[in-house]
């Protein structure tokens, strides 16, 4: 989850991480974590990372920041498949949520 600034809009944070700024805090699906440190226009990544339990890594030489996934528990916090969006060969975006209604086998592979 890559960012080009240390402060981002709530819309940018939601687009990249799936966590939305709401009156209850930062929310994703049915879950919310308390968060009072930002506005729609500006959320500090470090503040959001702390609230969400995500590591934040800065690469100052390139002006980049990266968030890792939430830590401290299991890789799968629940058995619900996250709504991950990935591109196909032609750059078209595919949402895992579109698979609802059919059994699916997701296979990770590589050419290397």
């Amino acid at each position, binding site marked *: *989850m*890559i960012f080009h600034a240390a402060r981002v809009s709530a819309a940018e944070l939601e687009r990249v991480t799936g966590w939305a700024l709401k009156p209850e805090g930062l929310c994703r699906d049915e879950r919310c974590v308390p968060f009072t440190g930002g506005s729609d226009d500006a959320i500090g990544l470090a503040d959001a990372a702390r609230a969400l339990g*995500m*590591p*934040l*890594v800065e*690469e100052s*030489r*390139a002006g*980049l920041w*990266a*968030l*890792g*996934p*939430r*830590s*401290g*528990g*299991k*890789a*799968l*916090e*629940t*058995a*619900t*498949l*996250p709504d*991950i969006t*990935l*591109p*196909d*060969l032609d*750059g078209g975006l*595919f949402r*895992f*949520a579109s*698979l*609802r*209604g*059919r*059994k*699916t*086998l*997701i*296979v*990770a*592979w*590589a*050419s*290397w």
Partner: protein
Amino acid sequence: MWQELRTELYPRLEIVTVALEARGSSAARPWIEKANPAHPALIDGAHVLAALGVINVPTGIWVDEAGTIVRPPETAYPRQPAFKDRVVPAEATPLQREAIELTRRLNVDADRYVAALRDWVERGVASRYVLSPDEVVRRSRPRPLAEATAAAHFALAQHLHGAGEDALATEHFKEAQRLHPTSWTYRRDAWAIAGPDHPAIYGTTWLDDVKREGVENYYPRLEL
């Protein structure tokens, strides 16, 4: 590799392949175009699937009609891979012989895996291979802070590689590997980018790492 099984089981089962390729679609394109799959074939440059606990390939995840994971990441081969039956050529060097013999010993149980998959497709929730949500979470990998931080470093490395900043990218690939030393995907994708010089850059090889970590741990035995 999966198209044959997809043809057999679709529309009762969809298959989605995800290529973990920090080089992006260019690395996966020849394989995908040759396979000409009817199923979605996606590209995961930043290894987003690592967040679900994917640390090696090929890895399968079963998801039911409601979007619930019913089996967490586990080794998934659709058929016995050729390396399991590979014969050592007479002209093989000692190193080549060792690599072939070691690869033959990797835990692969394609027949059992595919039989279980067919059982799930046939019986649905009544299949004995369907795990409860609690068991899926219990079987998924722990994610300590170091491994979550490794994911951020790998995403940075992949982004920097794409931007042509290979020296910086290598620093972050190395940090991802240091923080998540059991991830084969972080290692092998970075090695693929480095090419034949990767032992000099990363200080190790696949053969050395498999021997050090134990051949039985490369693909954990299936717990079906």
